[in-house]
């Protein structure tokens, strides 16, 4: 993927004019591109006057940041306590088996990234799987199969 240096520069400039927060700038870049390209860290450290080592330590410390590009679709399994007692480990298990990847990994064809999150705070719906921002609640292994099937079908049609 071509790294849009100009856009990244704009984001960092805007942050530099405002609060000047390194984490704020990285969060915005992460949200836009769903990962932090190495160029973003270099530009942010130069513009915001922070050592590159600090930018790197921030980027690797917080769960919200990723240095690797993500797949086209993101599947996030909530691993909060309420989801855990209602069976989220089985749901994650099923997704891992079906996709052939572990949590935190992206499928070799770059279609799916499987992630876990500590708690979404929508505990009445547990276990929850979020697919590209859409919540699916009261998940079971069967519902996981159906969900994946419909995603793959939609992909095949494109």
């Amino acid at each position: 993927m071509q790294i849009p240096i100009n856009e990244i520069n704009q984001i960092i400039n805007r942050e530099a004019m405002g609060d000047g927060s390194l984490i704020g700038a990285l969060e915005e870049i992460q949200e836009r591109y769903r990962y932090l390209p190495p160029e973003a860290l270099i530009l942010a450290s130069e513009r915001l006057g922070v050592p590159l080592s600090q930018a790197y330590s921030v980027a690797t410390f917080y769960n919200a940041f990723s240095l690797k590009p993500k797949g086209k679709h993101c599947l996030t399994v909530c691993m909060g306590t309420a989801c855990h007692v209602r069976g989220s480990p089985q749901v994650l298990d099923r997704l891992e088996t079906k996709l052939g990847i572990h949590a935190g990994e992206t499928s070799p064809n770059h279609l799916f990234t499987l992630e876990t999150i500590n708690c979404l705070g929508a505990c009445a719906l547990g276990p929850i799987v979020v697919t590209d921002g859409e919540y699916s609640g009261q998940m079971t292994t069967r519902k996981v199969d159906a969900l994946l099937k419909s995603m793959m079908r939609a992909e095949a049609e494109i």
Partner: protein
Amino acid sequence: MNRLQSASEYQSWQASLAAAWDDTKPCVRICDGTGCRALGSQKVLASLREEIDKAHLDTPIEVVGTGCPGFCECGPLLTIYPQRISYQRLTAADAPEIVRQTLAGGSVIERLLYTDLQTGEHIRLEPDLPFYKRQRRQVLNFNGRVDPRRIEDYVALGGYKALAKVLTSMTPGQVIAEVKASGLRGRGGAGFLTGVKWELCRQNVETAGSGFVVCNADEGDPGAFMDRSVVEGNPHAVIEGMVIGAYAMGVHKGFVYIRTEYPLAVENLRKAICQAEAAGFLGTDILGSGFEFALSVRLGAGAFVCGEETALLASIEGRIGEPRPRPPYPAASGLWGMPTNINNVKSWAAVPIVIERGAEAYAGVGTSTSKGTMIFSVVGKINNTGLVEVPMGISLRELIFDIGGGIPNGREFKAAQIGGPSGGCIPAEHLDVPIDYESLTSLGAIMGSGGLVVADEDNCMVDFARYFMTFTQQESCGKCVPCRIGTKAMLATLERICAGQGQTGDVDYLLEMGDHIKRSSLCGLGQTAPNPVLSTLRYFRDEYDAHILDKRCPSKVCKGLITYSIIPETCTGCMVCLRNCTSNAVSGLKGEVHSIDAALCTRCGVCKNVCKFDAVLVC
């Protein structure tokens, strides 16, 4: 709108908004919080508006999206004013019927009402629902009533009255005295007296010349979502509390540190800050008093440790969220070395209530040492998942069985975990203990931020402890050795026990290691990390013994200790389990009894879930 120049301008604006607020006017309020949105409330809202437009009703009916009223289990939720008819579990397809039957026709649709779990009766009105009936809503009072995106709604119901009162008729010292007298304790978990904390900070601000106030909205405890709900559903209460606190402590800059996992709360909060600035409740010369206060939002980036105050401050400063030793406490040296006061969302939101109603009235609710109300998120194996605000001192039994509606599917209650990964579990024998800071601590749990997860007989307490240890181990920032290595050692032991390789002496090792970690870790995360293990050991030692000595998981959860097999008498040979098994462990022909190859079986449980004949046995 024009910026308010004085308290009297505010008062006349407030009076006109209050006069225009009419609960007897027909109005539909629908929950637009994260929980109900996830269940499709926005579609319901859109189609209701469309249907109302189409129906050309005699009286115009407004549809308002509100904050979360708390009854997440039955979402999407809707309340029809003025009667307060409560409809639940709605879909967009229900909208035409609601407009035709109830809004135009005046009759109630029975199938959309809540059904009482015990009596099976339909309950029509919101105040009569058992879930709400026993609650005492102060902090959550506006959730479900106001549109969090409209400052006018908050003001109409008396919002910012406390701020006007403080700025016109109270000195900073009087504000601190009032908060002290109310007995308000930090709702973030530790329970330190808020007024005392303010007083310490004020003294340091006087010497240092300036300082900061911070709102801790980094609600990382998995299973707790009340802070999100308050920020999302009533952000102005938090802002008002913070301005009052800033005035009392003499500081002019504040931050709200909020989880990035809560996008809607962040959106509503940012909107509210802009509105408060425009109206003159934030910025320079607030309500013409000469007092100045600016508020910024900082997003957390997904690190549980940032809920710890010194780690949170490091994160606001743009560094990684590593805690540092205390003292100095933030009240003496916080953000950029300046005196800083940090309070939880619920503490800030309680401040306007304390000021407006007076310390005495606030202290009239609760127990002798724990004043006011507490918000719990009651989740897990419970019928009525949701947010519950109750007076301090209520018993766990009332909370779980009367308000929470008990355990689903007739299962037996086993334990309630209070305080999340820092807390402990409380077993059935202590269900009647009144909940306050002291009683929970004496039972080995903590109040924490109010997360309450219910486990039933199907949950294994060793697995439960392992779950929390996995969590804290992953979230340990790695700065101090006891937490970084100690949690890893405890987790490895627990994993071995769950895998069926437990040894005699493991329990003693866990107790000893837990004690070391508690005593020698740098921050609250490490110091409390062993709690879930220690408290499950205290109350459920028999389950540990069963795993270690008998190689048996009594609740049939731990994969290393269970096997799946098929009951020949019940199996119909329908092949459903065979087709669903991803590890090809099931064999058999159509119409003939199947069997499971234990060597290939990964114990994922899919066969049991899909079997319609209950023919899969776990033992």
